[in-house]
């Protein structure tokens, strides 16, 4: 159907009263067989149930024209007549302003009383509000001359499997051909002879009358003339003589050659061919321009991000962008890295994969590098970059800053009134203490419960440090559980806090652990020393020492630890 529409559209442009032409009538009949189908009109082509319909270029041009008139969809009924189709296409061929002046496409179709045509129009108001401006620009389909669409039609004809129908269709095309102006005929034959599809060429020429050919020969391009000669040399039988006579009598060949020689020179002067005289001086456009080249490259980065609309390809764009930033940072080209970074964060609404990449780049290591270079005198780009990051996402900078030895007060100041950035940084830093101290220093209300929460999760980085700050506010039971943890830093910190609390319950917990079979010798030693420093604890240890029934190997090790702790408590070094 779309092919038939395309061919109708092409033919309609050729004749004043196209509805009398056989190929057009055939196309109209073919179209009416698709009664009930509805074509959605898009710039550049037709769409049926969401899928673009492939078709000849002419169909694309028809769709464009309909689109510009504001058509949403086009369909036909069985009543469609060639006359009514011809009239429709004639209206469509008018400039949109003209059609608008005369009541719009829908109005004109109704006024003309055309039958068999179903049109719906886009809601113009909604369209203007909702559609992007691009949707209203016709895509840049190469402007195919009439003769090219003729070839398209010929190609369709050639695909026709039935030989008789094919011949009939070719005859129809030849009728069209003979109706053209001689110049257009020559152009068409010229194109036909230029195609490498010898089958198309022969299909058409084989049925063209010698005198029809003779009329165009004079207007042919020299190369086409040569191909025509070749074609004639293949033809067999009496037709060959007829053709040779029609195109090749000696006088006409001479005339032809003279004309060709002239046309070559004409063309040369026509485009004012200058001989190369001296090399043109290089303008600024062609000078070495690192800055300009780089800037153009970042614009293209942005351009690619804007134009890419498929999610899978957007992932590639994000990869490319990340590579640019990475490569620049690796080369310590911080200003360039910043420019690449800006090319994407300047976008109003970057596609998801890019937005994700922006959140990950630069990574912590790269930020550390930037911070180092910021300290150096030359780190101008680095400074700007870090400031940009601090402004947009301080959370990413605080961790590296802490690692770089930034003091807690400054970290607290950077975090402003948002404890979350500091809490978030705890996980990423080498030494979480400054961050935790900053968190306390900023005096955030509710920081303790959040820290305690973090403490609960075994994955949390810096739990021992957190424990230093929040430990005293924890209950004995809680500390007792921490005491049993495998993470030595945590369990020892918990032990320390229990000792400092000096509650009976706390000391008992320490002693139980001391006696536990799970504790190993170093831990036992450590616990014994803690206990030895408190009165009650020392008594418990002495109990172990005097217990005569503990003579097993295990008991021996307990007593040894107790003895050593008590001994060193009595004789402090």
């Amino acid at each position, binding site marked *: 159907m779309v092919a038939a529409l395309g061919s109708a559209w092409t033919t309609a442009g050729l004749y004043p009263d196209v509805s009398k032409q056989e190929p057009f009538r055939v196309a109209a009949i073919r179209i009416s067989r698709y009664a009930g189908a509805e074509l959605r009109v898009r710039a550049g082509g037709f769409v049926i149930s969401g899928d673009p319909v492939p078709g000849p270029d002419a169909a694309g041009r028809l769709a464009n024209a309909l689109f510009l008139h504001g058509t949403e969809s086009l369909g036909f009924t069985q009543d469609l007549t060639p006359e009514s189709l011809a009239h429709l296409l004639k209206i469509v061929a008018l400039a949109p302003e003209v059609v608008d002046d005369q009541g719009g496409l829908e109005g004109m179709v109704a006024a003309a009383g055309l039958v068999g045509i179903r049109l719906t129009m886009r809601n113009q108001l909604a369209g203007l509000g909702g559609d992007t401006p691009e949707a209203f620009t016709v895509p*840049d389909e190469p402007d195919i001359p009439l003769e090219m669409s003729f070839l398209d039609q010929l190609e369709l004809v050639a695909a026709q499997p039935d030989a008789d129908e094919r011949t009939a269709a070719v005859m129809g095309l030849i009728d069209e051909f003979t109706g053209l102006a001689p110049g257009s005929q020559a152009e068409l034959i010229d194109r036909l002879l230029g195609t490498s599809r010898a089958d198309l060429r022969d299909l058409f020429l084989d049925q063209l009358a010698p005198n029809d050919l003779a009329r165009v020969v004079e207007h042919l391009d020299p190369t086409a003339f040569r191909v025509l000669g070749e074609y004639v040399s293949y033809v067999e039988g009496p037709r060959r003589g007829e053709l040779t006579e029609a195109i090749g009598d000696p006088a006409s060949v001479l005339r032809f050659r003279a004309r060709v020689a002239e046309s*070559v020179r004409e063309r040369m002067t026509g485009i004012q061919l200058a001989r190369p005289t001296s090399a043109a001086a290089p303008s600024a456009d062609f000078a*070495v321009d690192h800055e300009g080249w780089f800037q153009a490259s970042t614009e293209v980065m942005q351009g690619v991000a804007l134009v890419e609309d498929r999610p899978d390809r957007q992932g590639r764009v994000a990869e490319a962008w990340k590579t640019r930033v990475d490569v620049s940072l690796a080369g310590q080209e911080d200003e360039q890295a910043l420019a690449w970074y800006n090319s994407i964060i300047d976008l109003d609404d970057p596609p998801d994969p890019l937005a994700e990449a922006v959140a990950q780049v630069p990574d912590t290591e790269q930020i550390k590098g930037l911070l180092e270079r910021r300290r150096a005198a030359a780190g101008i780009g680095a400074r700007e970059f870090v400031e940009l990051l601090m402004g947009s996402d301080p959370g990413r900078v605080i961790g590296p800053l802490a690692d770089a030895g930034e003091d807690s007060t400054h970290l607290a100041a950077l975090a402003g009134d948002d404890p979350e950035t500091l809490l978030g940084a705890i996980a990423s830093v080498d030494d979480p203490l400054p961050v935790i101290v900053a968190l306390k220093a900023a005096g955030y209300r509710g920081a303790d419960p959040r820290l305690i929460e973090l403490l609960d999760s075994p994955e949390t980085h810096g739990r021992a440090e957190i424990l230093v700050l929040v430990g005293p506010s924890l209950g004995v039971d809680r500390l007792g559980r921490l005491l049993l943890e495998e993470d030595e830093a945590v369990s020892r910190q918990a032990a320390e806090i229990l000792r400092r609390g000096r509650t009976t319950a706390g000391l008992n917990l320490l002693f139980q652990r001391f006696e536990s079979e799970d504790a190993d010798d170093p831990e036992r030693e450590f616990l014994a020393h803690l206990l030895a420093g408190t009165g009650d604890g020392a008594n418990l240890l002495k109990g172990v020492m005097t217990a005569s029934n503990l003579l097993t190997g295990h008991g021996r090790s307990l007593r040894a630890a107790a003895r050593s702790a008590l001994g060193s408590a009595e004789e402090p070094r």
Partner: protein
Amino acid sequence: MNTRSVLVSFRQAKNAMGLYPQEHPAVVSGVLGTLKALRDTMAESDMTLTLVQGHLYREREPQPHESLEFSDLLAGLRGAGIETVTFTAPVQVNDLRQAIAFSAGLSPDPPEQSVRFNEHPYSPEDLGIADDDSPRVRYAAAMDTLKKAMLSVGHDDRIPMADATVAVERLLEVTVAQPAAALLLATLKSHDGYTFYHSVNVAILSLAMSQNLGMDPEASKTLALGALLHDVGKARVDAKLLNTAGRLGPDEWAEMRRHPQEGATAILASAAPGQEFAAVVAFEHHARYDRTGYPLLGYARRPHPFSRLVTVCDVYDALTTRRSYRRAESPTRALLTLAKGAGTEFDPAMVDLLVSMVGVHPVGAVLELEDQSLVVVTAAPNTERIEALLVQTASGERLTTPEPVIVDEKRVVEQLPADIVDVQPSEFLDLVG
């Protein structure tokens, strides 16, 4: 008849065998055509073709032009494990058919008797050391690099940008030292692997333009890297679209139009600092001077001057090459088309530059003279004195060794697209000073 005609018909026969059954007329005529070419070129003697490191030798004689023009075919043969082919006169049709079928991967049995593979009658020493520095070798190297680049784009790998930069540097050296040879080389065409030849030609034309402009070598290289890689994005376009016979439909066009952004993305993902500018040329080469092309430029400026320059070279080379859907244009007609688009599609300054560089009868143009003889232009300092090679006499005889002649422009009847008269101007590279 020569080695080239044997390879032309061999390639046709091999391609036909890949497409059609054995008894199909295309296959039969391909095999018979090869047989005829072989018998003509061998006469009564035997013949051995040797393939070493991408170079083709006939006996001990290097065949530099054929090595380049048939690099795809020869690579295919090497891929099939064929390093030498020995023909014994008279070659029998069934042996030849077997040889072609084997090379096309359609038969596991190598031929015997009058055609034989891998007898290696010549040692590498016999064949002498290949001249690694000839313009042809540089052209082939650039093409190889480009193939690798497109392969990596297709596989989502990084483009070997360093290799591409070296290839461009080596082309620049040729353009500086032997400008006429460079332009002649840029007329090399092939229907197979169009994008590769085309891209290298565009790089050479851009370099030639840069030399006419007196550009700094660094700027020339930056320009030419973009020119060489301008179409790499096509590696992500469906292969069947690239060589489609007939014109593309709207959805196929939409797919094809993605190649600038695909290329730019691939380059941005691969470039070392300083090489990223190639992405600008790839992205903008179809954007048109008036910005009405594709893709939509998200920024306010026109395409970069380098992109505009490459666009003009791109279109010139494309128009002078035969494609599946149209014949090649002569240089003059191609320039005319460019001139028509000056100010809209093309930057008028760039069109002027190209026109003044290639001139009325550019190096490599095939001219028909009044007496119907054919010459290939090798230099044209002015219209009274066109230096050329006579390749076909007035009586229609093809010369195996073309004859240097001086032609007055008044004797020129017309410029012909080289493929229509079956002339490969680049074949005469060695005869150009």
